């Protein structure tokens, strides 16, 4: 074989090894989303069980309220979650997340995009599974993951069932009540 063709073949082989190696340096978006969700979910479960449920429902020493400053009450778990998401948005554009539901108390937390609708319906019908997909918003492609959000404490189901704006009033402990949506911008 002529010398230049051997060099060319060598270069192609080298690239074929190098490129996958470079991709393997990053972590796949799905894995990143799973890791983020593990943290978000745990933190909010801790707040819901050990703070809200314990102090507001069990001990009755303080209430939880959407207007926590005016009412001198605890912020709601959904608000704790949202405040965290807003703080993250101040620090990085590498990901965004929100808590949504097919039966939201506040209509602005209803699914807006097709991926959100599909994801929320999927995790509600397929208990124990997550939904992963891609969508384009505002000219940017995102890896979108939807995780089921379940009622982990009595505080969750009783408050939602009794709330005057809740479209559904038959939640039970352990039911899927909504979903956590995590978005990671990716190259399209």
């Amino acid at each position, binding site marked *: 074989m002529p010398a230049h063709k051997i060099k060319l073949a060598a270069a192609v082989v080298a690239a074929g090894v190098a490129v996958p190696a470079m991709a393997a340096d990053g972590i796949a978006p799905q894995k990143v989303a799973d890791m983020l969700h593990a943290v978000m979910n745990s933190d909010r479960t801790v707040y819901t069980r050990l703070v809200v449920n314990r102090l507001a429902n069990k001990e009755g020493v303080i209430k939880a309220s959407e207007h926590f400053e005016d009412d001198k009450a605890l912020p709601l778990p959904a608000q704790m979650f949202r405040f965290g998401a*807003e703080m993250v*948005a101040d620090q990085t554009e590498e990901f965004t997340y929100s808590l949504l539901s097919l039966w939201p108390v506040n209509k602005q937390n209803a699914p807006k995009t097709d991926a959100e609708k599909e994801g929320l319906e999927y995790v509600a019908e397929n208990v124990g599974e997550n939904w992963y997909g891609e969508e384009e918003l*505002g000219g940017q492609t995102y890896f979108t993951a939807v995780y089921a959000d379940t009622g982990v404490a009595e505080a969750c189901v009783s408050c939602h069932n009794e709330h005057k704006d809740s479209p559904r009033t038959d939640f039970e402990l352990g039911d899927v009540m909504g979903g956590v949506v995590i978005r990671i911008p990716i190259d399209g």
Partner: protein
Amino acid sequence: MRTPLLWLLWTVLTLAGAAAVGAAVFIGGDRTPMLLGETTGVHHQFETACESCHGAEPLSSTEDALDALNESCRTCHDEELKLSDDSHPRKKFRDPRMADYWAKLDARACTTCHIEHEPEITRPGAVTLAMDYCIACHADGEQDVRAERESHAGLGFETCASAGCHNFHDNRALYEDFLVKHADDPWLLDPPVAANAAALRAPDARFAKPVGEPLTLARAEAPAAVLARFPQQELAAWAASAHAETGVNCAACHAPRAKDEAALAAEWSDAFDLKACAKCHRNQAQSWTEGRHGMAFHKDVANPRKLDKQLKSLGLAGLEEDLPAAIRAWLDDPAPAPQMTVAAARIPMKAEAGHAVLSCASCHDPHAPERAPARVETCAGCHDDDHTKAYFGSRHHELYLAELAGEGPPGSGVGCADCHMPKVEDPASGRVFTTHNPNAYLRPNEKMIRPVCMDCHGLGFAIDALADPALAANNFKGRPAVHVPGIDWAARRVTTGEAARQ
């Protein structure tokens, strides 16, 4: 022969004109001729300090320039928006899931709804959109307000922002649960007393702790020559003043940097530096610069451009020394007036007060023995509009006079300052102080409901009173002629279980 000369003349004049404009834009000088259109109410006080808002580098892209512009809005207005529990904060719209709304109304940017220099399309609140803008996001599918609320079924979107209904930013007195909570308030509470005002008027409440020992004239720390100028009873009056009592001596305001007797005489100034007041009265001084009385002193208003710095940034360092004095003077940035005169105001003012400049001393006499702060007479000394003139003889005025005479309980009197400069809590320290920014609670006027009106009145009555423009203009002589039904709709939604059915 004429035509080439005319060409030459035209060329020279064009180049000279371009140079003049270029100099004003990039170097220095009065930019008033370049103002596109009248600026809004308070921005006009620094309208020639363009860099206060237009902070982008010269020749930036439109995108960068807009970003810099919006950032400068936030520099001054972010804190107030946070305190007002903004219903439409920027962070709500940053999330990519809101991307569809960006095309309809990009609420990530202040400039979408608030554009300066466009007086023909500027409405109250400095809004430059058609008043039915809510339709952009609240008219479709699950967000359709007309479907989500029976009470709103037939309403037009131009009525959303009607008085007493909804504000885009500050809904602290208008959110649904608050309306429901106060739906049964009587028009007059019992007792109708402003608790914060009463607390601050208590004899020893005004000072957390004395700065030092009460002063005698011997320790006043003023040069003998100065003291000799004043009659004995004036000096005695000062010695009985609150400042003397807390150990704030003459030097503290009139020669703050003097370290010994000799320096005291050398550095003595009859006029005092406003920073002297601000050293102790921090909250008051800062809030004063945030309103129209003291806006010229606001820390974020751009400083006048310095000729040498501007030339240096253009790579022409040192050129200013070669310029004739006349050109140098012409290129000098006129500072925004350090103190606003009464005549510069855009609302009716008394002609005889026109020359007066505004400072702490306009309303407060630091030498006076009386502790009663300025609440009515000082305001009426300059303000000459219908609302001010109508105050005298109103029920609020009667209560003010009664409290002064000792016939009404502390906190029951309602002077100008009781409504327009309410006692509020400093979010950082939790201490209650009198805000010196009369504009913070002025527009939309529902902002006044919680810190002011609800001390004495029920929510429904307060909403109705503020929603009646004739009543506000005649300074609340009489009862409201309008009723804003929102509070009834909110209450009905709960009691009839209407919410559950939707």
